[in-house]
């Protein structure tokens, strides 16, 4: 990753209010092609809200978000077309319980991307192999562990061949022994050059995998830098306080 590579996600002066509360306070951020950005911060700092506004699961009250040249809040923009290019992984997995693992991966590929079932199945098989649950293809999610379900969810998002992947606390709902298997998949993805924005409390992952750490507090970006700069040399008082509490 080099800093002069193409900007994939451009966030400019984005603000959002919940009544009186300023959830996002004039946030600006550029995410480059192939970059892994990890957003950290105390709960209620606005990191999930920022992430969810990138694919418009949350709407913003002011500012601009441009994904690969497309202004997503422009009235002429079809948000569904934008979302095809932006994969999302949720804290609560949100796999479709009435569909098998394979059907979970195939659904949007056939309905949205208009691939044939054969095409979709071919892509799904490769992805299931990649996330290490190929043998579960015919199972329903209810029979899978949390870690396996989350890997299905990651594969499902990847099946759309997105340009950028958003992870909203992907390991927070997992039992400790399953966190590793999900982080391993994410690490592999980052190394392959996938553009990723990750909200997480996993500091080990942030330190090892992130190209850049964004620290948020009270709806604003307070500090950012490489993992080395952030974890070991930050001068910011709030970041220092947060790190002392979490590490």
């Amino acid at each position: 990753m080099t800093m002069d590579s193409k900007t994939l996600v451009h966030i400019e002066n984005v603000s959002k209010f919940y009544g009186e509360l300023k959830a996002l306070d004039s946030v600006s951020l550029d995410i480059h092609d192939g970059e892994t950005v990890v957003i950290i911060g105390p709960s209620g700092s606005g990191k999930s809200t920022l992430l969810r506004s990138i694919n418009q699961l949350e709407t913003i009250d002011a500012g601009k978000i441009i994904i690969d040249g497309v202004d997503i809040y422009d009235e002429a923009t079809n948000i569904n077309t934008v979302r095809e290019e932006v994969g999302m992984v949720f804290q609560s997995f949100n796999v479709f319980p009435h569909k098998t693992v394979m059907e979970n991966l195939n659904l949007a590929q056939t309905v949205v991307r208009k691939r044939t079932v054969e095409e979709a199945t071919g892509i799904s098989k490769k992805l299931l192999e990649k996330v290490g649950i190929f043998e579960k293809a015919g199972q329903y999610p209810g029979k899978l562990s949390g870690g396996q379900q989350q890997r299905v969810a990651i594969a499902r998002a990847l099946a759309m061949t997105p340009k950028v992947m958003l992870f909203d606390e992907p390991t927070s709902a997992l039992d400790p022994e399953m966190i590793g298997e999900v982080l391993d998949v994410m690490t592999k993805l980052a190394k392959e050059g996938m553009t990723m924005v990750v909200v997480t409390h996993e500091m080990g992952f942030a330190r090892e995998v992130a190209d850049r750490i964004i620290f948020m507090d009270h709806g604003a970006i307070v500090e950012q830098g490489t993992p080395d700069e952030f974890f070991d040399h930050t001068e910011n008082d709030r970041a220092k306080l947060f790190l002392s509490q979490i590490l």
Partner: protein
Amino acid sequence: MPMSGSAENPKKIETSEGGAIPKKDDIGLFTAWRVTFIGAISIIAALVYFKPEPYLAILKFLPDGIYVTFKVTIASIFLSLVFGLIAGLGRISQNIFINGIASLYVEVIRGIPLLVQLFYIYFALGKFVQLPAELCAIIAMSICYGAYMAEIFRAGIDAIPKGQTEAARSLGMTSSQTTKHVILPQAIKTILPPVGNEFIALLKDSSLVSILAVSDLLRRGREYASESFDYFETYTMVALIYLVITLILSKLVAIMEDKISDDG
């Protein structure tokens, strides 16, 4: 089916509109359903066997009415499902206009007795358009039950975790694709038991249409009784036949539920 994490199924709504629907784990020989069903059939058989005059004559006179009752009930079930689905989706629509119309429909119709609605469509609106009684009966029943089913659909759809919609939408699926492929297939499981109850209630309420000169089971019984003056015998037979039909329908609903909850 077992689910984990946040994708938990809401608890099923347990009420019965009659017909003592047998539960899956209720495997005893003397379930309420079996006792009632076999009892009703035996009484009909005994009456016809030991007192063919007038019971056999009554039994021969009623099948036309049973046919009409079935016709009205089945047509109304299908139409009310359509009305219910449309209005139920309307009730959760973000569009204020659609939501308003759906809510108005549900509130108005549920506030007026079915018998009054039957009179209104047949006699009051008959001033402008005179439709056949049977058609009026089906329209009135469908509109009425559609409003109740709309509320069941709404509740069933509301019970699906929000994350399911978010996941589908984040994959680029449109709102209607999400409803069709993700929300409704899951909602069906919670919706089916209360909807099955509505089917049974609808079957029983179909006897109200006899008031519009529709020759359903009850009407045929009335015709027979008013000529023969065998009121006790005729209405005993009518009641037993309704009971048997209701029990059969409740069994069908139970089988359907089992089938759907077994799939995945």
